[in-house]
């Protein structure tokens, strides 16, 4: 089941990546990033079954990070929404070139 889980993890990771590439809604992009982290967590868990319980602890930490990121990220999104009245990243191109 290890390989299967890993492959699933990879697929989820890539789907997350895909989401970041194709979505323009900042929140959804962030959501996709969360999906990536989740995918990695799956890898950790899959490995942990063979390599020991540490993997689950790592997942625990990753979740913490994800939560922290969520807090800050959503704060930033709120902040930018106040300026642009939008979360569509295509509008955010004051900084370029």
């Amino acid at each position: 089941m290890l390989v299967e889980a890993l492959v699933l993890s990879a697929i989820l990771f890539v789907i997350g990546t895909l989401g970041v590439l194709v979505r323009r809604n900042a929140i959804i992009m962030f959501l996709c990033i969360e999906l990536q982290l989740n995918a990695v967590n799956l890898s950790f868990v899959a490995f942990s079954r063979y390599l020991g319980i540490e993997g689950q602890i790592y997942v625990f930490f990753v979740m913490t990070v994800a939560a922290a990121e969520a807090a800050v990220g959503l704060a930033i999104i709120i902040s930018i929404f106040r300026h642009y009245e939008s979360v569509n990243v295509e509008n955010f191109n004051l900084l370029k070139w």
Partner: protein
Amino acid sequence: MSESTLSAVAADVGQVAGGGFDPVLPGLILLLPLLGFAVNGALALASGSRSATALREGREEDHASSARPLTHTLPTWVGPGVMLAAFLLTAVNFVGMLGVELAEPVIRTYWTWMATGALSVEAAIQLDQLSLIMMMVITGVGFLIHVFSVGYMKEDPGYPRYFAYLNLFVFFMLTLVMGANFPMMFVGWEGVGLCSYLLIGFWFRDREKANAGKKAFIVNRVGDFGLLVAMFILFAVFGTLDYQAIFGAAPDTLVYGGATVTAVTLFLLLGAAGKSAQVPLYVWLPDAMAGPTPVSALIHAATMVTAGVYLVARSSVLFAMAPVGAAAVATVGAITALFAATIALKQYDIKKVLAYSTVSQLGFMFMGVGVGAYAAGVFHLMTHAFFKALLFLGAGAVIHSMHHALHATHKDWDAQDMRNMGGLRRFMPATWITMWVATLAIAGIWPFAGFFSKDEIIWYVGTSAPASVLYTVLWGMAIATALLTAFYMTRMMVMTFHGPNRTGGAEAKHLHEAPLNMTIPLGILAVLSVFGGWINVPGSVRDSFFGGFGLLPMSDWLDRWLEPLTATAYQIRVDQLGAYASTSPVGGGHVLWGAIATGLALAVVIIGARVVGSREIRPAVDSPEPTGFGKILHDKWYVDELYDRILVRPIQSLSRACWRWIDQVIIDGTVNAVGSMARGFGWFGSLVQTGQLNTYAFILTLGALVVLGVLIL
């Protein structure tokens, strides 16, 4: 430096040279003109500053109206004074040398000039027969011309500057002939060129004159290039540049007629041709007449332009070893002589006639030294110095007078155009007589100096290499040139002094004889033009009618005098080519051909006087432009135009092209293009920076893919 000067003086005083000849203060001969230069130069700066101040205040300095300041009276004494002293010193040394058989030159070394590695060039002077003869001519004629200049240049605001330059010139000329090695000679060589440049452009306000000076310098530099290269080859072969060492080792080191010596001689010839205004580098000399006339007399007739002859004579050993080189010298000389003579036929400017005449005569000298008759070449050099200086000074006196006359009436005629003169003999008889003496001398009429020197050259040209057709041709050219010379000189004299006066009535009143300080030098030179030729009369001639059946004081004196220097060359020549023939190419000996020559010349003079005298000459403004062949001659065969077309302009265009295209477009263009490209790339690169998050993420992912791929695959 101070130590060296001290040791130089010590060398002068203390040492006694071998051979019983003890030169008296030879260094001082050099130093005196330099001293004169220093004094006059300082005065010139002072005077220049004063007139500059005047100029700034809005008025032109005019010395003629005000009393001559000290800066103008002092040069009168300093300039000629140092020359007199130098001449006397030279004379003392000359007399001292007369009494001894000097086989080796006396060399005085003052300090080491350039020494590195194998090369060691000393600041040394060499006293031998050749250099002393030259020094006598330079200081003697030079002194006379200085005296003449006092009168001639009196009213010129640049008077002290003039004497400074003149003194400096003499210094360099003396360095040229006294130097004991090639580089020392080269110092003088370029130095005289420099002074010539400064003096030709003396009246630099006139663009033409300044241009002439520049032209002289640049053309001279072409010659200097040859001389430099010759020195390089000599150093590469001999490892030294001292005369004694090179000439002593040359016969053993070099192969007769070998490529090396031929190359050396050809490059030396290039150098000599530049300085002595030989084809193809003669073009600067006629233009050099832009300078004050005494300058023309001193530099462009008597001394500097003969440096080439001196060089060939000095390097006689080398030329003797290189038959091709020697033949080239003779050929160049013959072509120059004939060519210049034809141009002189149709010139109206009195100085231009003399200029081309000088070129022509220098050609004679080249012929002489080219065929190995070094003594004859030097002989003609000497006599030519006398009569050509005389001619120039005489012309100077004429111009001086004409200038005054025209100036007084504000007539804007050319003071040098012979068509504006005529009948001047009434106003300036002394000038007239002395110039006729010189004319007869240059025409080669017995017993004037030119007869002996020129005919000697012609003789040697014809008899030097009996087997060679070349020399026979040259001989014919020489004779033809001699006849042309007689003609154009006569033409000049007639147009200037005879016939009716064409200056105009008002002007004629102002025509006058030159002052004493100008006529006395003329007189002395006239005497020399007569008797100067008597020092080197061949024995057979001396015994004939031409020598008054032995009445002449000496025979072959110069030949014998120069023998220590020419003996080696002569020996090589005899070994390789055989001795000179005792008859001319078409038969007949010295005396016969002497008679023929003088007879022909006399005939030409008389006929010429008749022909020219009978022509109606109108002032320049009324004269028609010459036509036909005459125009070609008048326009000097269009050589200047040719040079302009094939050399000067192409180089200028090329220069401009180099600048505009290679420098600015190709090199700078490339550099700037690289810069612009980099910035362009930067701009282009920054375009990826769209500000779009998706794009960024995409590129990031793409990068991730690449990294993954590279690492995994």
